[in-house]
């Protein structure tokens, strides 16, 4: 009867369905050498220790040495990493902003849906801008006239040209007079 109970417990143990209490009971049975000899396949049960030993003093250090490997980054790598983080964050924020801005209900929509009407309006707008621009540049016409050579300005140009030539002659004579005086003084 006892033997059957042990067998049943052993089967449950191998299936992994025993409770802690049943395992303790099974160990108790098998602790008896007479019973253990009946179940040679369960010999190892006696060797199983239930108490967990205390870790050694440097256990934590050893564990960390195996599991945790810190890679020291150079300052350049660190800078690169931060730059990338900042750039990525900025991109996400900008993207979000643009998306919300695009989806804004009060965003300006096209006034015209017909391209022909839009084209007429564009021509009208550009002509208005052009007219205003030309009103501003009209005085430039007078400046252009001033830059025209005297010959191109008819009689007035001829007179102006003659006066200019005579003035050049007078300047030349004046220069000659000054040079003669300097020579005489020497």
């Amino acid at each position, binding site marked *: 009867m006892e033997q059957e109970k042990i067998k049943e417990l052993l089967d449950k143990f191998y299936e992994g369905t025993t409770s802690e209490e049943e395992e303790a009971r099974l160990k108790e049975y098998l602790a008896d050498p007479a019973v253990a000899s009946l179940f040679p396949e369960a010999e190892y049960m006696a060797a199983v220790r239930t108490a967990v030993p205390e870790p050694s003093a440097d256990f934590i250090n050893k564990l960390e040495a195996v599991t945790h490997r810190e890679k020291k980054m150079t300052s350049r790598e660190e800078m690169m990493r931060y730059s990338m983080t900042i750039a990525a964050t900025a991109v996400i924020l900008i993207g979000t902003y643009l998306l919300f801005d695009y989806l804004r209900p009060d965003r300006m929509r*096209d006034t015209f849906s017909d391209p022909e009407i839009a084209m007429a309006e564009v021509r009208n*707008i550009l002509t208005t801008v052009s007219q205003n621009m030309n009103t501003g*540049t009209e005085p430039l016409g007078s400046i252009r006239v001033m830059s025209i050579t005297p010959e191109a300005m008819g009689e007035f140009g001829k007179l102006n040209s003659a006066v200019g030539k005579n003035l050049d002659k007078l300047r030349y004579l004046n220069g000659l007079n000054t040079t003669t005086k300097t020579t005489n003084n020497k």
Partner: protein
Amino acid sequence: MKKLVLIIIVSALSLSAFCQKSPVDELFERYDGKDGFTSVYISSKMFSLLARIDTEDAEFQNLVTRIKSIRILSIDSAKNVSGLNFSNELLPKLNRTGFEELMTVREESGEVRFMIREVGGRIAELVMVTGGRGSSVVSIRGDLDLKTIASLSGSMGIEELEGLEKVEK
């Protein structure tokens, strides 16, 4: 922890710098759709459609292909009780945000200012601000050619616009 805070601060700063809106955008956002204001918006998508329409005027067609968007905001002068003037509101901000004055036309009816924003030596935006009671703002974005725009009305010869070519480049 310190590094995390630093990352958040730097990211927030870069985001705020990126998201800073142009004064023109702010103005349109503030008054678009409000009572007493009229706005017109022609988007880049519409301009891509316009580029496919054949017109006899090749110069105009070329100009249209280079424009990305046009926005107009104007005040209904009859409803402008508060005396709102876009010139006063917009121009100081434009000067601070990389816009340069191209020209100012003063007439009896009011003042018209042309402001441009250059990117990489090309004119990326032209803003025409009209003062007075019926104040209006026209913003044209794209790769703009002022000489072609100015020659559209045909009231003036090209010679007078040679100065504008220098601005364009």
